[in-house]
């Protein structure tokens, strides 16, 4: 994957005039206002912005966990609920959300035992048959690839925070999701662990070819990972800017030391600052 845009018909994710308001009357919060976002299949898109600008709300709406008050959402051309029923969406929340009584292996294989009718539904969704037919990847292999080979039979409580988060990522990738949504999955980790997990995430993404919607607070994380960085601002929550990160992949340590990389960081910081200022004004 070298950043070249794949030409496909329907976008993996398509939000139009999405609006979401919490509460009523004077205490109402407009978490999202008139949000348009179209993500072609196979892209890695990050959402960045100050706290409360609606990143998690956007993510939940895209994943079908919440309905917008206004506007339309489509995942590969179908409603999010339908996409969930076809197991097209994988979620990695901020905490690993593993089941404490199951070993790592059982945790990551449990989603395969649930909603078994999904495979057939997935085949019926247009342009998806090929992907659905490839079936579930070998979870043991995936765990080994993520560095959890030794930990496979351990309980989550016996693992470090980074290993747990890796297990959560493997669980989501194991579904071979068409869209992977991740809400600050690395925010609770130290910098070293975070960087190694970023690399592993990119490896898995490269191999299993999926569209990623990734929420982060870290500018450098966004630039490292993304094809596109979406900058958001609060009050009301909205998209203020979209930055295409035109850096070749795979992106290694050498690139992260280069000026081009830092220029992207500065650009995004500048846009974020502007978003702040526009709010203050």
């Amino acid at each position, binding site marked *: 994957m070298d950043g070249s845009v794949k030409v496909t018909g329907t976008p993996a994710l398509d939000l139009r005039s999405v609006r979401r308001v919490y509460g009523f009357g004077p205490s109402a919060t407009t978490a999202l206002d008139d949000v348009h976002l179209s993500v072609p299949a196979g892209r890695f898109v990050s959402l960045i912005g100050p706290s409360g600008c609606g990143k998690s709300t956007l993510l939940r709406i895209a994943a079908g966990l919440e309905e917008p008050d206004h506007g339309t959402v489509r995942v590969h051309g179908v409603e999010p*609920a339908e996409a969930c029923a076809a197991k097209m969406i994988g979620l990695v929340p901020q905490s690993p959300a593993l089941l*404490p009584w199951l070993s790592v292996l059982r945790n990551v294989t449990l*989603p395969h035992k649930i909603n078994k009718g999904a495979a057939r539904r997935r085949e019926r969704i247009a342009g998806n048959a090929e992907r659905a037919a490839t079936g579930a990847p070998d979870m043991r292999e995936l765990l080994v690839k993520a560095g959890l080979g030794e930990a496979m039979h351990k309980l989550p409580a016996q693992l470090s925070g980074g290993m747990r988060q890796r297990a959560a990522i493997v669980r989501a990738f194991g579904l071979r999701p068409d869209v992977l949504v991740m809400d600050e999955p690395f925010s609770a980790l130290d910098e070293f662990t975070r960087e190694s997990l970023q690399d592993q995430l990119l490896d898995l993404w490269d191999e299993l070819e999926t569209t990623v919607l990734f929420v982060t607070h870290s500018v450098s994380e966004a630039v490292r990972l993304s094809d596109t960085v979406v900058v958001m601002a609060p009050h009301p929550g909205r998209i203020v800017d979209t930055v295409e990160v035109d850096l070749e992949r795979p992106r290694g340590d050498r690139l992260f030391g280069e000026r081009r990389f830092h220029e992207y960081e500065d650009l995004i910081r500048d846009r974020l600052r502007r978003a702040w200022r526009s709010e203050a004004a």
Partner: protein
Amino acid sequence: MTVADERTAEAAAGTEPPAEPSRYSLRHPKSRIAWIRPAVWAPLLVMLALLALLWQWGADELPYLLPPLGKIGTSLTAEFGYYVDNALVTLGEAAAGLGMGFAAAFVLAVLTSELPLLRRAVMPIAVVLNVTPLVAIAPALVVAFGFGPLPKLVIAALICFFPILINTAAGLRSVPRQVLQVYRTIDAGRVELLWYVRIPHALPFLFAALRIVLPLSIIGAVVAEMSASGSTRGLGTVISVASSMNQLPVVYASILVLAVMGVLLLLAVTLVERRVLHWHDSTHD
């Protein structure tokens, strides 16, 4: 030695753990070998000895309240089979009642966790009844159901019902939101969610409820036996008959047997809990 040297030396001394691990393992209350040390068991032994002395003194002063310990022991050994038979009757009533109460409460807890309307209708009432001393209706139950085992089962079941209902309902709803979100994005069905996620999450709550409810079920059975003056079996009956005939050693021997029964039951629950909940914090602290 300069001031700076002194300071670093001090700091080093301060940060060095002074043989902490070995001290810890000896002091750790849960550690099994800790019982070898007299400092662990001696206080309990001394306390028991003091209580026994106090009891004997009380037995001299208040012979109508406390029998001498020796007589209790004699009664126990001489009629051991009699006590065991009656204990088993009481145990059977308590266990059957608990089983019924458990099954009913579990089913209702699952239903309330799935049906918000039902939950709103039932749970406030359950909370009130949970703090109501339900044993008080034992005499009325005896009038309604006679001297057979039925009122005993009903009262034990009733006493167990509400704590189990409330705890299980809380457990089923204790699943972290992000876990639920993960399984909602793959459209897990209600039954799948219950079976794979909610019920296992509720297990620690269930065991907590069992610990509360086990002694209660025995209390329920005993009180029901005592209220039914026509009963012929069970430790509650033994106690009430012996009391009316002023056979204090029999009364206290029965109470002792009940206490031992309670401890054994609790021990059994703990063992099962250790096996079932080996993944849970509460089982290895």
